[in-house]
């Protein structure tokens, strides 16, 4: 088999906080020495509790987040060596789909402008016909070109977001919880769309989700994260059939099934302790009351 489309070796990310004159005290270690790879044509599912570093890890794949240490090779290129221009060129081949379609589309741009900007970013131009083809490939009609985000539903917007991801014919799509903001009835539509892309166009996927059922359905392999580390990886069937790490087990058991008998309360709580501790308050929970000094993810 050829080189993996994505290969991360021992990557870590420490977020620094700014304030006062000095540096923040140490910062927060969001990803801690993770190694992982995605083969070409493969869909890797990344699961884990909130704040475990899934999004951070996923964003390191296309350089949106720069790792504090470790190497990331995407499409055979070492991101650290690419430089800013190189990184931008790389992003032709690595597209992203985000959680909230309404938020990830600029409310002041029409669908056409949104799509055109992708080409513009790489100095290219497109024809309307191309754009229409693109929209049709995600199941939308040409009439959507002139619409603003608020003129379309969540599911339609997520299709637009997928179209944007597909615009430059990427090899790898990073999907960060692409369906968790969608209604149940629509969620299935998008998941089906992504699955078709993987099958028909051979696009590789890094699929982040906290919904095990979703991962199970659409991923070839699964990586389970806990507090910045990957605690277990393997083919998804295997992992879900016989989870080895207590955390994975807790996750699997906690996932509500469609129709179990009434909840076995006591049993569950013991299992959880392995994965989640009450006192862990992630920095996420701190409201940002101080003066806004938003951190950049790109340097």
């Amino acid at each position: 088999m050829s080189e993996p489309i994505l290969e991360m070796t021992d990557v870590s990310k420490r977020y620094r906080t700014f304030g006062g004159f000095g540096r923040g005290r140490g910062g927060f270690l969001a990803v801690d020495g993770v190694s992982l790879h995605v083969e070409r044509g493969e869909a890797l599912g990344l699961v884990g509790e909130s704040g475990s570093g899934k999004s951070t890890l996923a964003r390191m794949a296309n350089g949106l987040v720069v790792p504090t240490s470790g190497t990331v090779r995407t499409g055979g290129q070492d991101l650290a060596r690419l430089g800013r221009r190189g990184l931008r060129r790389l992003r032709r081949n690595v597209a992203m789909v985000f959680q909230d379609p309404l938020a990830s589309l600029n409310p002041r741009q029409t669908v056409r402008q949104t799509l055109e900007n992708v080409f513009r970013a790489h100095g290219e131009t497109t024809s309307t016909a191309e754009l229409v083809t693109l929209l049709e490939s995600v199941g939308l009609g040409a009439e959507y070109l002139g619409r603003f985000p608020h003129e379309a539903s969540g599911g339609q917007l997520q299709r637009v977001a997928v179209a944007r991801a597909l615009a430059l014919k990427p090899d790898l799509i990073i999907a960060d919880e692409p369906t968790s903001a969608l209604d149940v009835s629509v969620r299935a539509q998008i998941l089906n769309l992504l699955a078709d892309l993987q099958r028909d166009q051979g696009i590789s996927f890094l699929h982040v989700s906290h919904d095990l059922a979703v991962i199970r359905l659409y991923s070839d392999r699964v990586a389970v994260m806990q507090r910045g580390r990957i605690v277990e990886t393997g083919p998804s069937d295997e992992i879900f059939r016989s989870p080895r790490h207590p955390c994975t087990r807790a996750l699997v058991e906690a996932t509500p099934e469609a129709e179990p008998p009434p909840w076995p309360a006591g049993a569950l709580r013991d299992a959880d302790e392995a994965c989640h501790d009450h006192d862990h308050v992630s920095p996420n929970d701190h409201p940002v009351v101080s003066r806004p000094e938003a951190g950049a993810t790109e340097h």
Partner: protein
Amino acid sequence: MSAAEIRQAEGRGTPALRRFLRKRSGVAGLVMLVVPLVAGLCAPLLVWIEGQDPSTLHTDLLDPDGGRPLGAFGGVSADHWFGVVPVTGVDLFAQIVYGIRSSLFIAFGASILSIAFAAVLGTAIGYFGGWFGAVAGRLIDFMFGFPGLMFVIAIMAIVPEEMPRGLVLVLVLAFFGWTVPARIIGAQAGAVNARAFVEAARATGAPPWQIIRREMLPHLFGLVVVLFAMSLPGNVSVVAGLSFLGVGLRGDVPDLGKLLSDSLPWIYSGADVWYMLFPGAVVFLIVFGATLAGDALRDVLDVRTEDAA
């Protein structure tokens, strides 16, 4: 705000201009601002129509003992639409329309300069964040330590005479005017920068300039316009206030603030209250108009300016 409301606010439901024109207070404000503005721009024409000029003294129109304008309403007549200035008999209308020029020139200059700088810096703070944002934040904190008006007064007192005072005023006002807007824009730009669609654009490989230009600026534009509209009346007031304190413009350039401070003794004594009325009304019109218009703009563009200080 619900998602629907956000959609409403940010979307292009109706163009901002149309929504603005639907607001009565905003349109009234705009008119109040624009009429004096146009009068100032067309000063030579208007004064020519009136048949006067801003420098000829008409001592014959004054009470020889003390120089109070003869006639009612401070000497209002067909020749002198707003009457004449006490002591010199200079045409008040000409003084005012030319005065609007200098006052508004300074206020506009200062507002444009300070808001432009604030916009650039604020966008940079929002875009780069990190240590740049931290340093810029400190700088703004530092600027907040300056006792604004007092410092301006002090500076205006030591301006070397070679420098044109109008320009110095513009610079000084701009120097103290950029901080709050920069912080507000910075906060807003930071918030925009943190929004998912900006990250999405980054993920498509868009270059920084495209991100700023196409993703961030459209979301900051309204704020910048509103901040500009809000800084304008403040600057007009300060320019007039400095003249009132005797440290404003000098020389024979007509200036609204100077007219006002000149008129003080005349209202103190009740000898010619009209002298204050006309320039006072014009200053009030400009300032109040700009405030109304700015406020309406803020509503229309749905910009929040209160919470970033």
